[in-house]
Protein backbone atom coordinates (compact mmCIF):
# COMPACT_ATOMS: atom_id res chain seq x y z
CA UNK A 1 0.00 0.00 0.00
CA UNK A 2 3.05 2.29 0.12
CA UNK A 3 2.56 2.90 -3.61
CA UNK A 4 -0.65 4.80 -2.86
CA UNK A 5 1.27 7.49 -0.95
CA UNK A 6 2.01 10.71 -2.83
CA UNK A 7 4.88 13.08 -2.11
CA UNK A 8 3.59 16.65 -1.53
CA UNK A 9 7.01 18.23 -1.12
CA UNK A 10 10.46 17.45 0.27
CA UNK A 11 9.13 17.04 3.80
CA UNK A 12 5.60 15.73 3.43
CA UNK A 13 3.83 12.64 2.16
CA UNK A 14 0.11 12.47 1.49
CA UNK A 15 -2.09 9.52 2.43
CA UNK A 16 -4.85 10.18 -0.12
CA UNK A 17 -8.52 9.89 0.80
CA UNK A 18 -8.92 6.81 -1.35
CA UNK A 19 -6.14 5.00 0.52
CA UNK A 20 -8.81 3.19 2.47
CA UNK A 21 -12.64 3.25 2.47
CA UNK A 22 -14.25 5.48 5.09
CA UNK A 23 -11.57 8.18 5.22
CA UNK A 24 -13.18 11.60 5.73
CA UNK A 25 -10.01 13.53 5.05
CA UNK A 26 -6.49 12.92 3.80
CA UNK A 27 -3.50 12.06 5.92
CA UNK A 28 -0.21 13.97 5.92
CA UNK A 29 3.00 12.39 7.17
CA UNK A 30 5.99 14.66 7.75
CA UNK A 31 8.93 12.65 6.43
CA UNK A 32 11.70 13.32 3.96
CA UNK A 33 12.77 10.64 1.51
CA UNK A 34 15.33 9.20 3.97
CA UNK A 35 12.86 8.79 6.86
CA UNK A 36 10.23 7.55 4.42
CA UNK A 37 12.27 4.36 4.18
CA UNK A 38 11.80 3.79 7.92
CA UNK A 39 8.02 4.25 7.67
CA UNK A 40 5.99 1.24 8.87
CA UNK A 41 2.88 0.23 6.96
CA UNK A 42 1.10 -0.16 10.30
CA UNK A 43 1.51 3.52 11.13
CA UNK A 44 0.27 4.59 7.67
CA UNK A 45 -2.83 2.42 8.27
CA UNK A 46 -3.31 4.14 11.62
CA UNK A 47 -3.05 7.62 10.07
CA UNK A 48 -5.77 6.49 7.63
CA UNK A 49 -7.91 5.02 10.44
CA UNK A 50 -7.80 8.29 12.39
CA UNK A 51 -8.88 10.08 9.20
CA UNK A 52 -12.07 8.03 9.30
CA UNK A 53 -13.20 9.22 12.76
CA UNK A 54 -16.24 11.54 12.91
CA UNK A 55 -15.70 15.30 12.88
CA UNK A 56 -12.00 15.32 12.07
CA UNK A 57 -10.86 18.80 10.97
CA UNK A 58 -7.97 19.27 8.56
CA UNK A 59 -5.73 16.33 7.81
CA UNK A 60 -4.91 13.33 10.03
CA UNK A 61 -1.23 14.07 10.62
CA UNK A 62 1.89 12.27 11.71
CA UNK A 63 5.27 13.72 12.61
CA UNK A 64 8.61 12.36 11.36
CA UNK A 65 9.14 10.27 14.52
CA UNK A 66 5.93 8.36 13.71
CA UNK A 67 5.65 4.70 14.64
CA UNK A 68 2.83 2.24 15.17
CA UNK A 69 0.90 2.82 18.39
CA UNK A 70 -2.37 1.57 19.82
CA UNK A 71 -5.22 2.91 17.69
CA UNK A 72 -3.64 6.26 16.85
CA UNK A 73 -0.04 6.25 15.65
CA UNK A 74 2.63 7.59 17.99
CA UNK A 75 3.65 10.91 16.49
CA UNK A 76 0.02 11.62 15.62
CA UNK A 77 -1.78 14.96 15.53
CA UNK A 78 -5.54 15.13 15.01
CA UNK A 79 -8.07 17.93 15.51
CA UNK A 80 -11.80 17.36 15.97
CA UNK A 81 -14.79 19.68 15.80
CA UNK A 82 -16.49 20.31 19.16
CA UNK A 83 -19.96 19.84 17.67
CA UNK A 84 -19.48 16.97 15.23
CA UNK A 85 -16.24 15.48 16.46
CA UNK A 86 -15.07 12.96 19.03
CA UNK A 87 -12.54 12.59 21.80
CA UNK A 88 -10.55 9.37 22.01
CA UNK A 89 -8.28 8.08 24.80
CA UNK A 90 -6.28 6.33 22.06
CA UNK A 91 -5.42 9.76 20.65
CA UNK A 92 -3.77 10.67 23.94
CA UNK A 93 -2.13 7.38 24.85
CA UNK A 94 -1.86 5.30 28.00
CA UNK A 95 0.74 7.52 29.61
CA UNK A 96 -1.37 10.68 29.87
CA UNK A 97 0.83 13.80 29.83
CA UNK A 98 4.01 11.92 29.29
CA UNK A 99 6.31 14.85 28.67
CA UNK A 100 9.69 16.46 28.99
CA UNK A 101 11.15 19.21 31.08
CA UNK A 102 14.49 20.93 30.66
CA UNK A 103 16.50 22.59 33.41
CA UNK A 104 19.34 25.01 32.82
CA UNK A 105 22.24 25.73 35.21
CA UNK A 106 25.17 28.10 35.68
CA UNK A 107 27.56 25.15 35.39
CA UNK A 108 29.85 24.48 32.49
CA UNK A 109 30.91 21.02 31.37
CA UNK A 110 34.53 21.24 32.58
CA UNK A 111 33.39 22.08 36.10
CA UNK A 112 31.12 19.03 36.31
CA UNK A 113 33.23 16.35 34.60
CA UNK A 114 35.29 15.36 37.68
CA UNK A 115 32.11 14.97 39.77
CA UNK A 116 29.96 13.15 37.22
CA UNK A 117 30.28 9.68 38.71
CA UNK A 118 29.27 10.86 42.19
CA UNK A 119 26.45 12.90 40.77
CA UNK A 120 25.02 10.01 38.76
CA UNK A 121 25.27 7.75 41.83
CA UNK A 122 23.43 10.25 44.03
CA UNK A 123 20.74 10.89 41.41
CA UNK A 124 20.28 7.15 40.94
CA UNK A 125 19.75 6.81 44.68
CA UNK A 126 17.47 9.84 45.05
CA UNK A 127 15.28 9.43 41.97
CA UNK A 128 13.06 6.35 42.39
CA UNK A 129 13.06 4.33 39.15
CA UNK A 130 12.39 0.90 37.71
CA UNK A 131 10.16 -2.13 38.13
CA UNK A 132 8.72 -2.54 41.62
CA UNK A 133 10.45 0.60 42.96
CA UNK A 134 8.63 2.70 45.52
CA UNK A 135 8.55 6.47 45.68
CA UNK A 136 9.41 8.62 48.68
CA UNK A 137 5.89 9.98 48.93
CA UNK A 138 2.82 8.13 50.17
CA UNK A 139 -0.35 9.92 49.28
CA UNK A 140 -3.72 9.27 50.84
CA UNK A 141 -6.81 9.85 48.77
CA UNK A 142 -7.30 13.41 50.05
CA UNK A 143 -3.71 14.34 49.13
CA UNK A 144 -4.04 12.70 45.76
CA UNK A 145 -7.19 14.72 45.04
CA UNK A 146 -5.17 17.87 45.65
CA UNK A 147 -2.52 16.68 43.19
CA UNK A 148 -5.23 16.06 40.59
CA UNK A 149 -6.70 19.53 41.02
CA UNK A 150 -3.51 21.55 41.39
CA UNK A 151 -0.87 19.77 39.31
CA UNK A 152 2.65 21.17 39.64
CA UNK A 153 1.37 23.82 42.07
CA UNK A 154 0.65 21.07 44.60
CA UNK A 155 4.32 20.08 44.51
CA UNK A 156 5.49 23.68 44.88
CA UNK A 157 3.17 24.17 47.86
CA UNK A 158 4.71 21.06 49.43
CA UNK A 159 8.11 22.75 49.11
CA UNK A 160 9.19 21.03 45.89
CA UNK A 161 10.34 23.99 43.82
CA UNK A 162 9.33 27.59 43.43
CA UNK A 163 6.25 29.45 42.27
CA UNK A 164 8.35 30.92 39.43
CA UNK A 165 8.67 27.39 37.99
CA UNK A 166 4.96 27.24 37.26
CA UNK A 167 4.86 29.86 34.52
CA UNK A 168 7.46 27.90 32.57
CA UNK A 169 5.29 24.83 32.28
CA UNK A 170 2.82 24.25 29.48
CA UNK A 171 -0.60 25.38 30.75
CA UNK A 172 1.08 26.54 33.97
CA UNK A 173 1.42 22.91 35.05
CA UNK A 174 -2.31 22.56 35.68
CA UNK A 175 -5.34 21.99 33.45
CA UNK A 176 -8.53 23.49 34.81
CA UNK A 177 -11.59 21.31 34.95
CA UNK A 178 -10.03 18.15 36.36
CA UNK A 179 -12.62 16.17 38.31
CA UNK A 180 -11.17 13.83 40.94
CA UNK A 181 -14.58 12.19 41.46
CA UNK A 182 -14.42 10.70 37.95
CA UNK A 183 -11.25 8.79 38.71
CA UNK A 184 -11.58 5.14 39.76
CA UNK A 185 -10.38 3.83 43.11
CA UNK A 186 -7.95 1.64 41.19
CA UNK A 187 -6.29 4.72 39.70
CA UNK A 188 -6.05 6.30 43.17
CA UNK A 189 -4.47 3.12 44.49
CA UNK A 190 -1.92 2.96 41.68
CA UNK A 191 -1.14 6.65 42.05
CA UNK A 192 -0.69 6.61 45.84
CA UNK A 193 2.94 5.48 45.91
CA UNK A 194 4.04 6.54 42.42
CA UNK A 195 4.02 10.33 42.71
CA UNK A 196 7.65 11.43 42.41
CA UNK A 197 8.91 8.39 40.48
CA UNK A 198 10.59 8.14 37.10
CA UNK A 199 9.15 4.81 35.94
CA UNK A 200 10.79 2.55 33.41
CA UNK A 201 11.02 1.88 29.66
CA UNK A 202 11.98 4.95 27.66
CA UNK A 203 11.68 7.33 30.63
CA UNK A 204 14.90 8.92 31.85
CA UNK A 205 16.70 11.67 33.65
CA UNK A 206 19.69 12.93 31.72
CA UNK A 207 22.58 15.27 32.49
CA UNK A 208 23.57 17.02 29.28
CA UNK A 209 25.69 19.85 27.92
CA UNK A 210 24.92 22.34 25.17
CA UNK A 211 27.19 21.40 22.28
CA UNK A 212 25.82 23.44 19.36
CA UNK A 213 23.85 26.66 19.17
CA UNK A 214 21.93 27.21 15.93
CA UNK A 215 20.17 30.45 16.90
CA UNK A 216 22.29 32.72 19.12
CA UNK A 217 19.58 35.25 19.85
CA UNK A 218 17.01 32.65 20.84
CA UNK A 219 19.55 30.77 22.95
CA UNK A 220 20.33 33.99 24.84
CA UNK A 221 16.64 34.60 25.42
CA UNK A 222 16.32 31.04 26.77
CA UNK A 223 19.38 31.55 28.96
CA UNK A 224 21.36 28.82 27.15
CA UNK A 225 25.03 28.97 26.19
CA UNK A 226 27.68 26.65 24.76
CA UNK A 227 29.10 23.99 27.12
CA UNK A 228 26.43 24.75 29.70
CA UNK A 229 25.05 21.89 31.81
CA UNK A 230 21.36 21.12 31.40
CA UNK A 231 19.13 18.35 32.79
CA UNK A 232 16.29 16.73 30.91
CA UNK A 233 13.52 14.76 32.65
CA UNK A 234 11.21 12.51 30.61
CA UNK A 235 8.32 10.85 32.42
CA UNK A 236 4.53 11.01 32.77
CA UNK A 237 1.56 10.12 34.96
CA UNK A 238 2.81 6.61 35.81
CA UNK A 239 0.33 3.90 36.79
CA UNK A 240 -2.26 6.55 37.60
CA UNK A 241 -2.59 7.74 34.01
CA UNK A 242 -2.49 4.18 32.70
CA UNK A 243 -5.38 3.19 34.90
CA UNK A 244 -7.41 6.21 33.77
CA UNK A 245 -6.79 5.24 30.14
CA UNK A 246 -7.57 1.54 30.76
CA UNK A 247 -10.82 2.43 32.59
CA UNK A 248 -12.01 4.86 29.93
CA UNK A 249 -11.18 2.58 27.00
CA UNK A 250 -13.96 0.34 28.32
CA UNK A 251 -16.32 3.31 28.80
CA UNK A 252 -15.53 4.66 25.33
CA UNK A 253 -15.87 1.28 23.72
CA UNK A 254 -19.44 1.02 25.01
CA UNK A 255 -20.06 4.68 24.08
CA UNK A 256 -18.88 4.15 20.49
CA UNK A 257 -21.42 1.33 20.13
CA UNK A 258 -24.14 3.44 21.77
CA UNK A 259 -23.55 6.41 19.43
CA UNK A 260 -23.17 4.23 16.35
CA UNK A 261 -19.51 5.00 15.66
CA UNK A 262 -17.86 2.28 13.61
CA UNK A 263 -14.34 1.51 14.76
CA UNK A 264 -11.72 -0.11 12.58
CA UNK A 265 -9.74 -0.90 15.75
CA UNK A 266 -10.99 -1.15 19.37
CA UNK A 267 -8.08 1.01 20.58
CA UNK A 268 -9.70 3.89 18.63
CA UNK A 269 -12.69 3.80 20.99
CA UNK A 270 -14.18 7.29 21.21
CA UNK A 271 -17.34 9.25 21.96
CA UNK A 272 -18.87 12.45 20.60
CA UNK A 273 -17.15 15.39 22.29
CA UNK A 274 -20.45 16.70 23.63
CA UNK A 275 -21.49 13.38 25.20
CA UNK A 276 -21.31 12.75 28.94
CA UNK A 277 -18.81 9.92 28.39
CA UNK A 278 -16.44 12.23 26.49
CA UNK A 279 -16.70 15.01 29.05
CA UNK A 280 -16.05 12.55 31.86
CA UNK A 281 -12.96 11.24 30.10
CA UNK A 282 -11.70 14.78 29.50
CA UNK A 283 -12.10 15.68 33.19
CA UNK A 284 -10.33 12.46 34.28
CA UNK A 285 -7.60 12.93 31.66
CA UNK A 286 -7.00 16.44 33.00
CA UNK A 287 -6.59 14.96 36.49
CA UNK A 288 -3.96 12.55 35.13
CA UNK A 289 -2.22 15.37 33.25
CA UNK A 290 -1.99 17.31 36.50
CA UNK A 291 -0.61 14.23 38.27
CA UNK A 292 2.16 14.10 35.64
CA UNK A 293 3.08 17.78 36.03
CA UNK A 294 3.34 17.33 39.80
CA UNK A 295 5.54 14.27 39.18
CA UNK A 296 8.03 16.11 36.97
CA UNK A 297 8.04 18.99 39.46
CA UNK A 298 9.00 16.65 42.35
CA UNK A 299 11.72 15.00 40.29
CA UNK A 300 13.14 18.38 39.32
CA UNK A 301 13.32 19.42 42.97
CA UNK A 302 15.23 16.30 43.99
CA UNK A 303 17.53 16.77 41.01
CA UNK A 304 18.37 20.30 42.18
CA UNK A 305 19.02 19.00 45.70
CA UNK A 306 21.32 16.27 44.38
CA UNK A 307 23.36 18.79 42.39
CA UNK A 308 23.61 21.13 45.38
CA UNK A 309 24.74 18.40 47.75
CA UNK A 310 27.29 16.79 45.41
CA UNK A 311 28.77 20.12 44.33
CA UNK A 312 28.34 21.86 47.73
CA UNK A 313 26.60 24.76 46.04
CA UNK A 314 23.73 27.03 46.99
CA UNK A 315 20.69 27.44 44.75
CA UNK A 316 21.84 30.86 43.53
CA UNK A 317 25.28 29.70 42.50
CA UNK A 318 23.88 26.60 40.80
CA UNK A 319 21.21 28.63 38.97
CA UNK A 320 19.23 25.51 38.12
CA UNK A 321 15.95 26.87 36.81
CA UNK A 322 13.27 25.53 34.54
CA UNK A 323 13.49 26.41 30.86
CA UNK A 324 10.22 24.73 29.95
CA UNK A 325 8.04 21.65 30.40
CA UNK A 326 6.00 20.22 27.52
CA UNK A 327 3.33 17.52 27.38
CA UNK A 328 3.54 15.11 24.46
CA UNK A 329 0.52 12.86 25.18
CA UNK A 330 -2.52 15.06 25.71
CA UNK A 331 -5.89 16.29 24.45
CA UNK A 332 -6.85 19.97 24.79
CA UNK A 333 -9.48 22.39 23.60
CA UNK A 334 -7.63 25.08 21.64
CA UNK A 335 -8.56 27.92 19.33
CA UNK A 336 -7.30 27.60 15.75
CA UNK A 337 -8.04 29.30 12.46
CA UNK A 338 -9.78 27.00 10.00
CA UNK A 339 -10.69 28.36 6.53
CA UNK A 340 -10.12 31.89 7.82
CA UNK A 341 -12.42 31.45 10.84
CA UNK A 342 -11.41 31.14 14.46
CA UNK A 343 -12.73 27.84 15.76
CA UNK A 344 -12.37 25.85 18.96
CA UNK A 345 -11.14 22.33 18.39
CA UNK A 346 -10.33 19.32 20.53
CA UNK A 347 -6.68 18.70 19.70
CA UNK A 348 -5.21 15.25 20.19
CA UNK A 349 -1.43 15.07 20.42
CA UNK A 350 -0.05 11.58 20.95
CA UNK A 351 3.70 11.54 20.76
CA UNK A 352 3.69 15.06 19.39
CA UNK A 353 4.46 18.40 20.99
CA UNK A 354 2.63 21.70 21.01
CA UNK A 355 4.69 24.30 19.11
CA UNK A 356 2.94 27.67 19.49
CA UNK A 357 4.35 30.72 17.67
CA UNK A 358 5.61 34.05 19.02
CA UNK A 359 2.78 36.23 20.28
CA UNK A 360 0.45 33.37 21.24
CA UNK A 361 -1.64 34.34 24.28
CA UNK A 362 -1.03 30.97 25.98
CA UNK A 363 2.72 31.60 26.24
CA UNK A 364 4.21 33.03 29.45
CA UNK A 365 5.46 36.63 29.30
CA UNK A 366 9.07 35.46 29.24
CA UNK A 367 8.52 33.62 25.94
CA UNK A 368 5.72 35.67 24.37
CA UNK A 369 8.04 37.35 21.87
CA UNK A 370 10.19 34.31 21.29
CA UNK A 371 7.69 31.51 20.69
CA UNK A 372 7.18 28.34 22.70
CA UNK A 373 10.23 26.27 23.58
CA UNK A 374 9.92 22.74 22.17
CA UNK A 375 11.97 19.99 23.83
CA UNK A 376 12.91 16.94 21.78
CA UNK A 377 14.71 14.11 23.58
CA UNK A 378 16.80 11.71 21.53
CA UNK A 379 18.29 8.35 22.44
CA UNK A 380 20.82 8.10 25.27
CA UNK A 381 23.87 7.99 23.00
CA UNK A 382 23.29 10.81 20.56
CA UNK A 383 21.56 14.12 21.26
CA UNK A 384 18.47 16.06 22.26
CA UNK A 385 17.23 19.37 20.85
CA UNK A 386 15.65 22.65 21.87
CA UNK A 387 13.46 24.24 19.20
CA UNK A 388 10.86 26.99 19.00
CA UNK A 389 7.26 26.95 17.78
CA UNK A 390 6.38 28.89 14.63
CA UNK A 391 3.50 30.59 12.84
CA UNK A 392 3.80 27.99 10.09
CA UNK A 393 3.09 25.23 12.64
CA UNK A 394 -0.05 27.16 13.59
CA UNK A 395 -1.14 27.20 9.94
CA UNK A 396 -0.14 23.66 8.96
CA UNK A 397 -0.20 21.40 12.02
CA UNK A 398 -2.49 23.18 14.52
CA UNK A 399 0.67 24.32 16.30
CA UNK A 400 2.29 20.89 16.64
CA UNK A 401 5.63 19.24 15.97
CA UNK A 402 7.54 16.00 16.68
CA UNK A 403 8.29 14.62 20.17
CA UNK A 404 11.42 12.47 19.98
CA UNK A 405 13.54 10.15 17.92
CA UNK A 406 10.93 7.47 17.33
CA UNK A 407 11.63 3.80 17.76
CA UNK A 408 12.95 1.82 14.85
CA UNK A 409 13.87 -1.58 16.29
CA UNK A 410 11.62 -3.85 18.33
CA UNK A 411 12.71 -4.58 21.91
CA UNK A 412 13.44 -8.15 21.04
CA UNK A 413 15.53 -7.21 18.04
CA UNK A 414 17.44 -4.67 20.14
CA UNK A 415 18.15 -7.26 22.85
CA UNK A 416 19.40 -9.67 20.17
CA UNK A 417 21.61 -6.98 18.67
CA UNK A 418 23.00 -6.15 22.09
CA UNK A 419 23.85 -9.75 22.95
CA UNK A 420 27.46 -10.10 23.98
CA UNK A 421 27.89 -6.34 24.08
CA UNK A 422 28.15 -4.16 27.17
CA UNK A 423 26.03 -1.18 26.20
CA UNK A 424 27.00 0.70 29.34
CA UNK A 425 30.67 0.33 28.44
CA UNK A 426 30.12 1.43 24.86
CA UNK A 427 28.41 4.54 26.19
CA UNK A 428 31.10 5.06 28.85
CA UNK A 429 33.68 5.02 26.05
CA UNK A 430 31.78 7.95 24.54
CA UNK A 431 31.85 9.77 27.88
CA UNK A 432 28.30 8.91 28.90
CA UNK A 433 27.69 7.35 32.32
CA UNK A 434 24.51 5.29 32.39
CA UNK A 435 22.79 3.67 35.37
CA UNK A 436 19.69 1.55 35.08
CA UNK A 437 17.79 -0.77 37.41
CA UNK A 438 16.83 -3.27 34.72
CA UNK A 439 19.45 -5.44 33.05
CA UNK A 440 17.59 -5.49 29.75
CA UNK A 441 16.54 -1.84 29.80
CA UNK A 442 19.88 -0.68 28.43
CA UNK A 443 19.78 -3.18 25.58
CA UNK A 444 16.22 -2.25 24.62
CA UNK A 445 17.00 1.42 24.81
CA UNK A 446 20.37 1.33 23.06
CA UNK A 447 20.91 4.17 20.57
CA UNK A 448 20.55 2.00 17.45
CA UNK A 449 17.02 1.04 18.51
CA UNK A 450 15.96 4.58 17.59
CA UNK A 451 15.94 6.74 14.50
CA UNK A 452 18.60 9.43 14.61
CA UNK A 453 16.84 12.33 16.33
CA UNK A 454 18.84 14.77 14.19
CA UNK A 455 17.10 13.41 11.06
CA UNK A 456 13.71 13.81 12.72
CA UNK A 457 14.43 17.34 13.92
CA UNK A 458 15.79 18.36 10.50
CA UNK A 459 12.46 17.47 8.90
CA UNK A 460 10.42 19.67 11.26
CA UNK A 461 13.00 22.45 10.95
CA UNK A 462 13.08 22.26 7.15
CA UNK A 463 9.30 22.07 7.03
CA UNK A 464 9.23 25.25 9.15
CA UNK A 465 6.93 23.86 11.87
CA UNK A 466 9.62 24.56 14.48
CA UNK A 467 13.14 25.96 14.33
CA UNK A 468 16.34 24.68 15.88
CA UNK A 469 17.89 26.60 18.76
CA UNK A 470 20.39 24.25 20.39
CA UNK A 471 21.65 20.68 20.48
CA UNK A 472 22.31 18.94 23.81
CA UNK A 473 24.65 15.97 24.26
CA UNK A 474 24.21 13.36 27.01
CA UNK A 475 26.80 12.99 29.80
CA UNK A 476 24.93 10.93 32.38
CA UNK A 477 21.67 8.99 32.21
CA UNK A 478 19.42 7.48 34.89
CA UNK A 479 16.92 4.91 33.65
CA UNK A 480 14.38 2.52 35.18
Amino acid at each position, binding site marked *: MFEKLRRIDENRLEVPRDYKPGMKTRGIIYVDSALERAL*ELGSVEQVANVASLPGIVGASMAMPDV*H*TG*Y*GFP*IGGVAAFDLQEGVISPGGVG*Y*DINCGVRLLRSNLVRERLLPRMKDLVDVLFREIPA*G*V*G*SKGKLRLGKADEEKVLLKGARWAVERGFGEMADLERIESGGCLEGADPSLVSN*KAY*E*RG*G*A*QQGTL*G*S*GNHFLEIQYVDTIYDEEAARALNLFKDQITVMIHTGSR*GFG*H*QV*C*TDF*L*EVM*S*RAAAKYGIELP*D*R*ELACAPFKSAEAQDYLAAMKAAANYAWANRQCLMHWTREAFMSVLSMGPHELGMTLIYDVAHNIAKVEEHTVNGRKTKLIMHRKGSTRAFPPGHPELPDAYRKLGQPVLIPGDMGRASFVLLGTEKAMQETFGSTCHGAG*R*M*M*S*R*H*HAIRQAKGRAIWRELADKGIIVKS*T*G*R*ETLAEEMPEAYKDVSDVVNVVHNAGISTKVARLRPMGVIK*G
Partner: protein
Amino acid sequence: MQFETIDISGDAGIRARGSTVPEAFANAGIGMYSLITDISWVNESTSIVFEANGDSLEGLLVSYLNELVFRFDTHGFIGRKIEIGDISGLSMSVTVYGEEFDPGRHEQRLLIKAATYHNIKVKQIDGMWEVEVVFDI
Protein backbone atom coordinates in the same frame (compact mmCIF):
# COMPACT_ATOMS: atom_id res chain seq x y z
CA MET B 1 5.50 -23.34 29.33
CA GLN B 2 2.83 -22.78 26.70
CA PHE B 3 3.71 -19.23 25.76
CA GLU B 4 6.21 -17.21 23.74
CA THR B 5 6.96 -13.53 23.33
CA ILE B 6 5.80 -11.62 20.26
CA ASP B 7 8.16 -9.16 18.68
CA ILE B 8 6.55 -5.75 18.38
CA SER B 9 8.08 -2.31 17.93
CA GLY B 10 8.53 -0.57 21.26
CA ASP B 11 6.35 -2.85 23.32
CA ALA B 12 6.01 -6.51 24.26
CA GLY B 13 3.46 -9.20 23.49
CA ILE B 14 2.66 -12.76 24.48
CA ARG B 15 1.27 -15.66 22.46
CA ALA B 16 -0.07 -18.44 24.69
CA ARG B 17 -1.81 -21.77 24.11
CA GLY B 18 -3.98 -24.17 26.05
CA SER B 19 -6.43 -26.99 25.47
CA THR B 20 -9.18 -24.80 26.95
CA VAL B 21 -9.74 -21.04 27.06
CA PRO B 22 -9.03 -20.85 30.83
CA GLU B 23 -5.77 -22.75 30.32
CA ALA B 24 -4.67 -20.47 27.45
CA PHE B 25 -5.59 -17.41 29.54
CA ALA B 26 -3.65 -18.74 32.54
CA ASN B 27 -0.60 -19.30 30.33
CA ALA B 28 -0.91 -15.74 28.97
CA GLY B 29 -0.84 -14.46 32.57
CA ILE B 30 2.28 -16.53 33.35
CA GLY B 31 3.81 -15.18 30.12
CA MET B 32 3.10 -11.64 31.28
CA TYR B 33 4.69 -12.30 34.69
CA SER B 34 7.74 -13.67 32.88
CA LEU B 35 8.13 -10.34 31.10
CA ILE B 36 8.23 -8.61 34.50
CA THR B 37 10.72 -10.97 36.18
CA ASP B 38 12.27 -14.45 36.13
CA ILE B 39 9.38 -16.26 37.81
CA SER B 40 11.51 -19.26 38.81
CA TRP B 41 12.60 -17.07 41.75
CA VAL B 42 9.02 -16.35 42.82
CA ASN B 43 7.64 -18.27 45.81
CA GLU B 44 4.05 -19.40 46.01
CA SER B 45 3.69 -18.21 49.60
CA THR B 46 0.43 -16.27 49.23
CA SER B 47 -2.47 -16.17 46.85
CA ILE B 48 -5.04 -13.76 45.49
CA VAL B 49 -8.51 -14.58 44.23
CA PHE B 50 -10.70 -12.39 42.06
CA GLU B 51 -13.54 -12.50 39.58
CA ALA B 52 -12.95 -11.13 36.06
CA ASN B 53 -15.64 -10.03 33.60
CA GLY B 54 -15.69 -8.94 29.99
CA ASP B 55 -17.98 -8.16 27.08
CA SER B 56 -16.28 -10.76 24.85
CA LEU B 57 -13.49 -13.33 25.24
CA GLU B 58 -11.02 -10.62 24.18
CA GLY B 59 -12.51 -8.18 26.68
CA LEU B 60 -12.32 -10.84 29.40
CA LEU B 61 -8.64 -11.52 28.64
CA VAL B 62 -7.77 -7.82 28.75
CA SER B 63 -9.70 -7.17 31.94
CA TYR B 64 -8.16 -10.19 33.72
CA LEU B 65 -4.61 -9.27 32.70
CA ASN B 66 -5.19 -5.64 33.68
CA GLU B 67 -6.28 -6.87 37.12
CA LEU B 68 -2.92 -8.68 37.43
CA VAL B 69 -1.15 -5.46 36.33
CA PHE B 70 -3.12 -3.51 38.93
CA ARG B 71 -2.25 -5.97 41.73
CA PHE B 72 1.41 -5.78 40.81
CA ASP B 73 1.46 -2.00 40.48
CA THR B 74 -0.29 -1.36 43.79
CA HIS B 75 0.68 -4.24 46.09
CA GLY B 76 3.72 -5.58 44.25
CA PHE B 77 2.01 -8.96 43.93
CA ILE B 78 3.85 -11.17 41.44
CA GLY B 79 2.48 -14.60 40.53
CA ARG B 80 4.00 -17.92 39.55
CA LYS B 81 0.98 -20.15 39.15
CA ILE B 82 -2.49 -19.23 37.88
CA GLU B 83 -5.70 -21.27 38.12
CA ILE B 84 -8.78 -20.17 36.21
CA GLY B 85 -12.20 -21.74 36.68
CA ASP B 86 -14.72 -22.38 33.92
CA ILE B 87 -15.94 -19.36 32.02
CA SER B 88 -19.64 -18.79 32.44
CA GLY B 89 -21.45 -15.79 30.99
CA LEU B 90 -18.12 -14.12 30.18
CA SER B 91 -16.96 -14.13 33.76
CA MET B 92 -14.42 -16.35 35.47
CA SER B 93 -12.78 -16.89 38.82
CA VAL B 94 -9.01 -16.43 38.97
CA THR B 95 -6.61 -17.67 41.66
CA VAL B 96 -2.95 -16.63 41.53
CA TYR B 97 -0.20 -18.06 43.75
CA GLY B 98 2.86 -15.88 44.32
CA GLU B 99 4.37 -13.32 46.67
CA GLU B 100 5.32 -9.67 47.06
CA PHE B 101 7.90 -8.47 44.54
CA ASP B 102 11.28 -7.74 46.12
CA PRO B 103 13.75 -5.86 43.89
CA GLY B 104 16.55 -7.31 46.02
CA ARG B 105 15.61 -10.88 45.15
CA HIS B 106 13.63 -10.62 41.93
CA GLU B 107 15.07 -9.58 38.60
CA GLN B 108 13.65 -6.28 37.31
CA ARG B 109 12.71 -6.82 33.70
CA LEU B 110 9.81 -4.91 32.15
CA LEU B 111 7.35 -2.59 33.80
CA ILE B 112 4.06 -3.66 32.23
CA LYS B 113 1.57 -0.83 32.49
CA ALA B 114 -1.47 -2.16 30.63
CA ALA B 115 -2.79 -5.03 28.51
CA THR B 116 -4.19 -3.61 25.26
CA TYR B 117 -6.63 -4.59 22.51
CA HIS B 118 -3.93 -3.99 19.89
CA ASN B 119 -3.98 -6.99 17.48
CA ILE B 120 -5.60 -9.07 20.21
CA LYS B 121 -6.53 -12.65 19.26
CA VAL B 122 -8.45 -15.44 20.96
CA LYS B 123 -8.92 -18.31 18.52
CA GLN B 124 -9.13 -22.06 18.22
CA ILE B 125 -6.56 -23.76 16.01
CA ASP B 126 -6.55 -27.53 15.50
CA GLY B 127 -8.43 -28.10 18.75
CA MET B 128 -6.09 -25.85 20.78
CA TRP B 129 -6.88 -22.34 22.00
CA GLU B 130 -4.36 -19.66 21.13
CA VAL B 131 -4.35 -16.09 22.44
CA GLU B 132 -2.21 -13.09 21.57
CA VAL B 133 -2.01 -9.90 23.58
CA VAL B 134 0.24 -6.85 23.46
CA PHE B 135 1.27 -4.86 26.55
CA ASP B 136 1.98 -1.20 26.94
CA ILE B 137 5.30 -0.78 28.73
